[in-house]
């Protein structure tokens, strides 16, 4: 339990803050897109670490609401799919779609879409992690 409250949760919060910062900076200056591209795998790693820690805690007999905890855990993983969503606007992705009206985004638009989704996902993951913390602490 102390591992989650003392290490994993603060780490996830710091990573979410970095992701949000990178997103905000890229929204303002699209040439900083690389910052979001670097932050995405770090966020995936942090969420994966959180998932493993919580699952280990659950299996080690923590007295918490299993459905609720797993629900939030699944939500945190599902949110990752929205990171880097600008890739769906690349010419290659549009060419592979039978829809003739599928938009092709310019590199600046792709950067801004990635940045906006990074901002939203960073806030959402931070909230989900906080909810997991509340649930785990209530069972401690």
């Amino acid at each position, binding site marked *: 339990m102390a591992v989650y409250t003392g290490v994993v949760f603060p780490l996830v919060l710091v990573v979410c803050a970095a992701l949000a910062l990178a997103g905000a900076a890229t929204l303002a200056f699209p040439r900083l897109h690389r910052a979001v591209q670097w932050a995405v795998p770090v966020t995936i790693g942090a969420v994966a670490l959180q998932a493993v820690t919580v699952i280990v805690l659950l299996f080690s007999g923590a007295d918490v609401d299993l459905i*609720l905890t797993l629900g939030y855990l699944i939500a945190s993983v599902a*949110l990752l799919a929205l990171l880097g*969503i600008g890739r769906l*606007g690349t010419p290659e992705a549009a060419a592979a779609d039978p829809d003739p009206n599928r*938009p092709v985004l310019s590199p600046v*638009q792709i950067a*801004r*879409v990635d940045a*906006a*989704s990074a901002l939203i996902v960073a806030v959402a993951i931070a909230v989900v992690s906080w909810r997991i913390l509340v649930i785990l602490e209530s069972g401690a």
Partner: protein
Amino acid sequence: MNYVARIALIVAYAVLALAALGRSSYQISTKLAEAPVPYLVSGVSAALYLVIAIALWKRWAGVALVGTAIELAGVLVVGTLGYVEPTWWADETVWTGYGSAYGWVPLVLPIVALVMLVRERRAVLSSSEPAPSSGDAR
């Protein structure tokens, strides 16, 4: 509507749909009898968010417009009734307190979406109108 704004809206609606779906499915499956109205309202809101996200993605402008209008009406009605008739609500819904539990995103999002969709609709209508003729018809 520019693509960046549209996709940002889709992401925001997808996140809200995920949150509302998780909350309502848990409440409906485990304790529906305790507060059926609030939990069913949360279920309806979750379904609405999902429909709007898909409609924005598929560019079903009419569905998105109607969906966001219903959503805004729902947030305003449920939010107001929560203060006027608090005894009707045994528990909170996604729209309670005008979505205060979700940082008022449920209130702000449909307003932003409606403004964007109405602007887009006007732009489409004005571009489809025939240009005025320059000479007299004989």
